[in-house]
């Protein structure tokens, strides 16, 4: 294993550049270093002007998603040694506007996330005196996989449909909608279906499947979207065959 490795880091300084430039930095490459450690080393020891997002360093906060050699990755969970002898190319997430260096603008995603109401919707709350809403382990298992999403947006970066049509609500937002739909305490599935059955919702997905491949938490957003499509189609058939029952 080589002891040093070169990182080619995308730099975009809007005050003086109109295009992304790459700068190379030679770093130590201890086997326990992840790409984020390399970026922190550059920031602390070589060039303090490098901008990027990070927070928890343990795959929970979802802040440090970037392209590593073209693949959307959490840089806190991507070991430099796996890319030895390098060079390793680090770029901002694809399909998002770049604000500076490796920092992308995520307002579009945050807006879409809020649109699908990713919280428990109740028609009416039961009185506190009746206690909590209990769930069986099976009911928890129904949605647990989708609840693991950390909003890292790697799926948006991997999705060519989102790149081509930025109006598409996108994988993580749909997976999170499905997480609440499958929750036995939730009653908001019909409200979410109205939003997600629009053209920019589930039907925008053509099942490329890359979102599921890059998801660091094994959420399977592609699966969530296809299940949603099946559910929407079944409801349409039900409404067609039994129009009164559907009302």
């Amino acid at each position, binding site marked *: 294993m080589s002891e040093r490795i070169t990182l080619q880091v995308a730099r*975009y300084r*809007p*005050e003086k550049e*109109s*295009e*992304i430039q790459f700068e190379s930095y030679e770093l130590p490459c201890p086997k326990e270093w992840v790409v984020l450690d390399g970026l922190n080393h550059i920031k602390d020891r070589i060039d303090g002007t490098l901008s990027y997002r990070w927070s928890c360093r343990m795959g929970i906060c979802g802040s440090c998603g970037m392209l590593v050699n073209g693949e959307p990755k959490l840089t806190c969970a991507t070991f430099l040694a796996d890319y030895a002898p390098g060079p390793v190319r680090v770029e901002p997430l*694809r*399909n998002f*506007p*770049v*604000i500076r260096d490796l920092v992308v*603008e995520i307002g579009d995603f945050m807006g879409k996330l809020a649109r699908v109401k990713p919280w428990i919707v109740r028609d009416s709350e039961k009185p506190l005196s009746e206690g909590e809403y209990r769930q069986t382990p*099976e009911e928890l298992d129904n949605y647990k996989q989708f609840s693991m999403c950390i909003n890292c947006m790697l799926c948006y970066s991997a999705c*060519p449909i989102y*790149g*081509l049509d930025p109006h598409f609500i996108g994988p993580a937002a749909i997976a999170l909608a499905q997480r609440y739909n499958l929750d036995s305490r939730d009653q908001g599935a019909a409200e979410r279906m109205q939003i997600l059955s629009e053209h920019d919702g589930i039907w925008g997905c*053509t*099942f*490329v*499947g*890359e979102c*599921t*491949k890059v998801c660091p938490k094994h959420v*399977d957003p*592609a*699966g969530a979207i*296809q*299940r949603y*499509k*099946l559910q929407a189609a079944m409801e349409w058939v039900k409404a067609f065959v039994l129009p009164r029952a559907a009302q």
Partner: protein
Amino acid sequence: MTPNTAYTPYHPRWHRTRVSTYWWLARGSYFLFILRELSSLAVAWFVVYLLMLISAVSTGNDAYQQFLHWSGTPFALFMNIGSFVFVVLHAVTWFNLAPQAMVVKVGSKRVPGFLIAGSNYAGWVLVSIAIVAILFIQW
């Protein structure tokens, strides 16, 4: 910062990378996806071919013989063989993706994906055997 400072939807300094027209050549999985999408044209071709066959059969023996002759031309053979390859690709990728869309439970346990895909393949084989039997066995 002045009190009037506000965010605006237009940010001329954000860098927006244009998606290349050839984005589907960037990765093997994107290319396979585009092939799968294109395979719908092959399905459409077989529908047209079937309608042409029905039309020839309903017109009479001469029209049917003419259709058979045309089906042996290099163009028709090329279209049918190429479409067959695409339709097989369509079927295989479809069956492989089926477990992601279908959640089948037996009791409280989810049926594993390979069994769902496997049952699709088994159905495909059974239907194919039935068609071969109808076509080639002298009843």
